[in-house]
């Protein structure tokens, strides 16, 4: 086993909610009473005559586009290298990667639902949002749904998303043990953003649980906030 894997506890605890992390810039002002319609700043942005702006570009143009896995792998590898220079310790590193995954998850959530068009539905139940992650999100990212979704027998607020062979791992050309944890932290961030954004606040942590059959098996442990359980308990059963 890698020396990064603490045998006393198979779980790697961390996972801050970036939204409440100090220093995250998020200029918010309470709904204020003003006398005039707020003015927009005048734009200083220049546009190429051919390109206009991002608003003129079709959102679904690259929906089915593909790039090489290697491109992702190389970029991801540099993301890890860069993060490593700034932190001391594997937990901080995973925090950083979680944050980068988080910002991607926030965008994916809106993009995927927007693409469903008029039939798009927001998830209002725990099972619903988990299925969304395990099926829709996972398929979009990795071309296949997650391998399993389980509810913890011991804890009401915990669920496990299982990936027997994370596609992300196979991209990376850094030491296997290290890469597994890192990639998983990134994906955990994506998942956490989707859950948080949908108003199912949670902490998502990644754990490698190798088996004979699946040496790269990864479990994403999803621990929901109390508020989620409370709300779920008053929902009508169907």
């Amino acid at each position: 086993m890698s020396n990064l894997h603490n045998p006393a506890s198979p779980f790697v605890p961390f996972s801050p909610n970036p939204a409440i992390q100090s220093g995250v810039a998020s200029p918010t002002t309470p709904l204020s009473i003003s006398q005039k319609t707020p003015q927009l700043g005048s734009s200083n942005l220049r546009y190429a005559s051919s390109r206009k702006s991002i608003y003129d570009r079709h959102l679904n143009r690259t929906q089915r586009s593909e790039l090489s896995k290697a491109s992702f792998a190389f970029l991801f590898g540099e993301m890890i290298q860069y993060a490593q220079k700034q932190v001391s310790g594997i937990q901080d590193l995973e925090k950083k990667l979680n944050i980068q995954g988080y910002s991607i998850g926030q965008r994916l959530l809106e993009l995927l639902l927007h693409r469903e068009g008029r039939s798009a539905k927001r998830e209002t139940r725990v099972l619903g949002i988990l299925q969304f992650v395990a099926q829709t999100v996972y398929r979009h990212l990795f071309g296949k749904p997650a391998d399993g979704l389980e509810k913890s027998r011991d804890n009401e607020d915990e669920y496990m998303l299982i990936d027997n062979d994370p596609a992300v791992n196979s991209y990376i050309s850094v030491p296997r043990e290290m890469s597994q944890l890192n990639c998983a932290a990134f994906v955990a961030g994506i998942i956490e953003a989707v859950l948080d954004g949908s108003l199912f606040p949670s902490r998502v942590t990644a754990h490698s649980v190798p088996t004979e059959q699946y040496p790269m098996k990864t479990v994403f442990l999803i621990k929901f906030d109390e508020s989620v359980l409370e709300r779920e308990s008053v929902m009508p059963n169907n």
Partner: protein
Amino acid sequence: MSSTKAARIGEEVWKTRIDKVNAELVTLTYGSIVAQLCKDYEGDYMEVNKQLDKMGYNIGLRLIEDFLAKTNTGRCINFRDTAETISKIGFKVFLNITPTVTNWATDNKQFSLVFEENPLADFVELPDDGRAQNELWYSNILCGVLRGALEMVQMQVDAHFTSDVLRGNETTEMRVSLIRIIDDELPPGDD
């Protein structure tokens, strides 16, 4: 090798030997990297450019092996050959694009790559802070990649963007110049 032959090889390799991934994942990942750098360097875009170039350089050093293994391309006979290989095969098998090679210098040691498409820059609009559009080269990582990759095949080059649609220019263009052929006895330059 001729441009058409290179294009054919690039297309063939792309179709048959490349594992693929959703493009948007790559675009979003790169976006996350650049945005993070801009935050970390507090808007010092010159520094961000440098970091992107460095990252690209690190990638290039490793990417070349991957490239050679997948494409079985032999040694390029001259710099013109190199240019075609880069644009029709290199960019094709990694980013599924084929930038146009133009503006050759008379000594055949400099050319431009013009990017009609740039998947790294999809959805992107530079910050409206009056500086980003004058200072940041969003896709600068590509310059580093070229530099690193070519260094591993004994070519010391300079690569830099001269224009970018993200900056309001009409085209996105990278200028590549051959500085020298690296002798086998000398150690490769490093950062």
